[in-house]
């Protein structure tokens, strides 16, 4: 009576023991599983390797475009440096976030989103315009109320100046007057590190109030044009540099992924061979014991 009552609990315990023991004893059943995993890892390695090669070739072009656009943007901004233009404080600001549509490039998009959140935090006087789907998805979760515009379709190729102009036009057409426009992009420091950095594009008001403005004889009618043009210049610079960062980050990410896949492949091949040997040894032992046992009879 007592033994029978105790039995269910015992059998449950046994079952639990048996379940936990199964994955440990790598035996006949898992051999095929290991083979399958090995195959899929090999395929993934092939894909990541190809993506790395594609990113490398795109990177050289992107970097060339970046260095060219950087001198372009810096030259355009030199006017404001000479005039010592300062952004107007406590006025409405627009942040333009330059990310892209494509992922699989490490943490550069989330780094940009994080920087945006940090800058926006505690400052309700900020609106956000986003270039690229990735940062849009991330920021629409936290700062959806502040987004006024989003652009998609960037990142397929090296950004053109026509892209920058169209974006600048759309920003200029926004109903609200922004005292300053901050363009946030990933600054290319070296192939390993990028830093979210803002560039300022000033409003007409800010330009006229800058201390050394009188040194330039600028007509009021021309000023609006200059402001639009410099916004497009800065955007072009930011887009090109962001693109180069993305390609370089993708190259690194894919390089790491291929390396990890290689590690996993070697680990799984060893495991596979060992399991195979164990299975063969087990079978041999079974045959031999069977033979000797039948001999005795």
């Amino acid at each position: 009576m007592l033994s029978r009552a105790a039995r269910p609990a015992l059998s449950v315990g046994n079952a639990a023991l048996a379940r936990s023991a199964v994955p440990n004893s790598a035996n006949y059943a898992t051999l095929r599983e290991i083979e399958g995993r090995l195959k899929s890892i090999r395929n993934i390695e092939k894909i990541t390797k190809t993506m790395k090669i594609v990113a490398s070739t795109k990177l050289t072009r992107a970097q060339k475009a970046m260095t060219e656009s950087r001198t372009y943007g810096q030259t355009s901004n030199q006017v404001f440096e000479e005039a010592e233009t300062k952004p107007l404080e406590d006025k409405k600001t627009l942040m333009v976030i330059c990310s892209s549509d494509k992922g699989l490039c490490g943490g550069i998009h989330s780094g940009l989103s994080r920087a945006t959140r940090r800058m926006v935090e505690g400052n309700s006087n900020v609106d956000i315009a986003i270039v690229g789907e990735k940062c849009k998805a991330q920021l629409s979760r936290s700062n959806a109320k502040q987004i006024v515009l989003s652009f998609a379709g960037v990142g397929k190729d090296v950004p053109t100046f026509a892209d920058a102009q169209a974006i600048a036009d759309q920003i200029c057409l926004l109903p609200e007057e922004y005292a300053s426009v901050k363009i946030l992009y990933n600054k290319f420091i070296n192939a390993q590190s990028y830093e979210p950095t803002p560039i300022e594009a000033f409003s007409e008001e800010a330009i006229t109030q800058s201390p050394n403005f009188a040194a330039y004889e600028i007509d009021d009618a021309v000023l609006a044009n200059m402001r639009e043009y410099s916004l497009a210049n800065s955007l072009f610079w930011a887009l090109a540099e962001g693109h180069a960062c993305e390609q370089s980050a993708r190259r690194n990410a894919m390089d790491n992924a291929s390396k990890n896949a290689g590690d996993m492949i070697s680990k799984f091949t060893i495991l596979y061979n060992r399991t195979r040997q164990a299975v063969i040894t087990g079978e041999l032992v079974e045959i031999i014991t069977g033979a000797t046992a039948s001999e005795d009879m």
Partner: protein
Amino acid sequence: MSFAWKAAGITYNRYLAIAARVVRRSLKEGPRLQAERRGEMDLRFAKWQNGKQGENKNLGDANASAMAEHAAETK
């Protein structure tokens, strides 16, 4: 100083884009194809209101129509 294109409601950037397009189109066949690739723009955009994304529209068309509207206002 007044500009003819300003009266037509076109922004400076648009004016530049059009001028650049004209220059590109007047190039010789070989370099033209290469140069026209630099003038391509295929962006879509959406306006947001109260945390909701609006409709996705083609940026080039939207810019053109917005400027046409702007021109009608200034006249």
